[in-house]
């Protein structure tokens, strides 16, 4: 699921409700109910919820603290009292899958922003939670690095059945993996559905959602009387739809 919407609309705040950081850590006034993996969030402590929900912070520096990458990735597992052999296996797996094995002995605070984001993702991956929340997890990564991370997350979703909630503005990169998009505005959910319908809606345009360029091209061509068979989200889809139109002529 991709969660998007204007800067300051409440995306990060909503994510903090999913693992109990709100209200248990941030305080404030909370009404209504959040149920995650069958647990009512307010009835559980953060450490119980952490077994089910992993949150990758927007700013990796706020999450990393250990003296080596490996220790940071192992920290969550130590707290869950995972046996040593299993811990070793899962830490190595998480480092390998995020492509940072060669950084395992390095202090996280000395790494670049992009490397720190990989470490933060590895920390949460190692826990193998039911639900993974990633708050702009690739903002410091180059596009190829970002794509690799999205592919890893996509595989985890498909193969291990992990629910993925991805907070993103760069919809051109993220949309092709999503089957559900939610748009927030001023603290409310204003659009909720499958990507094509949401991106092509009048409301998305009015709120100023940066829909993928493939979708935008579909809309602009439509305004000029050229109809493509369906709403494209990726460049491949747009190219193959255009191919049909170009052949027809």
């Amino acid at each position: 699921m991709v969660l998007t919407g204007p800067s300051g609309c409440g995306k990060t705040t909503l994510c903090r409700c999913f693992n109990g950081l709100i209200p248990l850590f941030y305080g404030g006034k909370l009404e209504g109910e959040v149920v995650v993996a069958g647990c009512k969030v307010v009835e559980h402590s953060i450490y119980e919820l952490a077994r089910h929900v992993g949150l990758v912070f927007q700013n990796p520096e706020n999450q990393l603290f250990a003296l080596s990458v490996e220790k940071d990735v192992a920290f969550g597992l130590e707290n869950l009292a995972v046996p040593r052999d299993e811990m070793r296996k899962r830490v190595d797996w998480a480092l390998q899958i995020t492509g940072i094995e060669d950084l395992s002995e390095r202090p996280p605070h000395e790494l670049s922003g992009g490397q720190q984001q990989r470490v933060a993702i590895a920390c949460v991956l190692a826990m193998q939670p039911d639900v993974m929340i990633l708050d702009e997890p690739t903002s410091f990564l180059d596009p190829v690095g970002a794509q690799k991370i999205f592919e890893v997350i996509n595989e985890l979703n498909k193969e291990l059945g992990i629910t993925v909630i991805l907070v993103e503005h760069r919809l051109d990169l993220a949309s092709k993996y999503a089957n559900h998009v939610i748009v927030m505005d001023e603290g409310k959910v204003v659009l909720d559905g499958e990507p094509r319908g949401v991106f092509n809606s009048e409301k998305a345009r009015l709120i100023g959602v940066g829909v993928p360029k493939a979708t935008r091209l579909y809309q602009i061509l439509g305004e000029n009387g050229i109809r493509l068979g369906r709403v494209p989200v990726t460049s491949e889809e747009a190219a193959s739809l255009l191919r049909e139109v170009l052949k027809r002529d």
Partner: protein
Amino acid sequence: MIEVKDLCFTYPTGVEALKGITLTIDDGEFLAIMGQNGAGKTTLVKHFNGLLKPTKGEVVVDGVTTGEVSVAQLARKVGFVFQNPDHQLFCETVEEEVAFALRNFGFEENAIKKRVDWALNLLDITQYRQTSPFMLSGGERKRVALASVLAWDPQVVILDEPTIGQDHQQKEKLRQFIVQLNAQKKTVIVVTHDVEFVAECNPRVVLMTEGKILAEGPAEEILTNQKLVAQASIVPPQITQIFLGLSDFGLPTNVIDVHEARRILLDILEGAS
């Protein structure tokens, strides 16, 4: 004008981050520096305001060699907005944050007030005037950092990943503002991974890899060169990808802009029918 001559830089840890960079940036230019993580982009721009001094070679900003002056002296001329706003923000309120540098530069209180108002309004954060920057969202903090630099109106503005956390409307405002700065002969240097933002702006692009410049030229030339793009660990803009997928129809492959794409497709389709 910024002149970079055979610049090499090695960090105290021994990491050789820049290996011979030569580059000239004219007044009023809009330059985007792109390339993979660890290519040396941030290291390079930190030389433009003297935060880092060359190990070898030199950087000359408006006739002044950066190695010979302090960061404080260069700061008035060259403003730098960090990648991570948390490395930059420290005041109790947004207003104080934006006024801080102005006070340091010795502006009059009246002028400070005017400039703070202007910058807060420009970045759409006036309503947070009395709020602590640390209570704001990631995207809003980024805009406070931007405001605090733009407020003193430097001749050269360096923006390290300015679009992080920004929604589409904010990016569009940023683009328009950069165009305005350029019109006033101010230089804007952006370090970014945001290919779609660069495609919308079409600046001159410098592509870096492993401490060297791989290529430079207009965005529509660089971003549509599949070989270069792959070497620099970036992906072509979505519109380019679409046109690359249609190259067997004889369509041009150097398209980055959605409106240009529309024009080309309409010409072909309407011409045919």
